[in-house]
């Protein structure tokens, strides 16, 4: 069991190491013009980082590759993508994704 002091110390440490990477590039880069090569590189960061966050969610289960007909997360990505593609609304997209997963479990008994 942790003492109160340990918990406060832990939260303070976590808050510090989380905040520094968020604020330093902003504070250092925003004030000066960017090198065009760096600007081009940074232009690919949003798409890359989002895909890097998403892909393991869809393709991995318990740390192993799981591409099969019972991978509900991967199946649900199809209607979710289509809703985003045709409505352009992220709210409807999230709702459609959750509805598909809920239906897959209730109706088809997928895990």
């Amino acid at each position: 069991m942790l003492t109160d002091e340990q918990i406060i110390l832990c939260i303070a440490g976590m808050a510090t190491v989380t905040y520094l990477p968020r604020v330093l590039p902003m504070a250092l880069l925003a004030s000066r013009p960017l090198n065009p090569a760096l600007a081009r590189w940074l232009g690919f960061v949003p798409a890359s980082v989002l895909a890097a966050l998403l892909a393991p969610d869809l393709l991995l289960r318990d740390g192993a590759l799981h591409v099969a007909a019972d991978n509900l997360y991967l199946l649900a990505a199809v209607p979710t993508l289509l809703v985003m593609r045709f409505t352009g609304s992220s709210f409807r997209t999230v709702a459609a994704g959750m509805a598909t997963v809920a239906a897959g479990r209730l109706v088809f008994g997928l895990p």
Partner: protein
Amino acid sequence: MEDDGRMCDGALPYGERQGASGAKTPGEGVPGDGTAGRSWAGHEGPVRQGSAPLSSAHAGPGRGVSGHGPTGCGGARDVCRGRSGDAPLMQGIGEGVRRAFPIVLGYVPVGFAFGVLALKSGIPAWGALAMSLFVFAGSGQLIAVGLIGGGAPLASVVLTTFVVNLRHLLMSAALAPRLRDWGLLRQALFSAEMTDETFAVHVSTLRGEADDPSRAAVFACNVTAHAAWVGGSALGVFCSTLVADVRPLGLDYALAAMFIALLLPQCRSRAHLFAALVAGACSVGFALSGAGRWNVMLATVCAATLVSLLPVGKTSTTREEMGTPGGEGGAHAD
């Protein structure tokens, strides 16, 4: 408000342009619009044109009607202010809260899960809430709670949090050019609430505007998301004895669905789509080969470096930069 909007639109050429581009809402252009390439170009159109103070193209609900009124008014707010006072500011706040809707949908259930797990691993209720308030990092907090529950030393909890959240370094750098005119204090406040999700919303709505209604929208979005995270954690803390299962409602899919919603508009050229595919494959590959929590960061660096070295997207990037109104050249990251 209709009349106000129209008056503003007429008063300044800027407002007129907004009105014209707003007339066709982004969503309307997409269905049945031929090839993917063409309709995405149409989809991006209003956003590109709009160095609009409140370009809400991907912001979800209300983007049609409300994307229109506030934009016209915000752009010409000197004219509007005489009649409507703080209305543009309030509209900015409302717009920001609307942008945060999909984030709220994802944060409440995940925050709930965090609250439940935190208490089960021996963290007191005040500690769990303080962590959500001061750290505000979804996956980082969940992993930290797992480590604490497993009796890991505090130094390793902090170090792991650092590694897990280091990816924000890249996001912060990517947004920096768009916040260049904001001043250090606002940048510092903004950074405190920059998560994967708020980053993704801002990267698709923010185009370097530095007027008050746009800033109000950004901060309103961040504060709403933060409140949803702390609120979800509080629910989890207070309901931890009930241990409700969120799976039957599909709530566990909310964040993945939101990443899909946010990723798609980012794939606006072949080069960007290629970067996303490379990053996704690398991320899975690194995760499988035991890179642990470094996979997101390593994959992002690999994909962005590879694609930016390819000659493929170069011409289209140059064209995009030249076509950006306000012509800050390389200042805009994309």
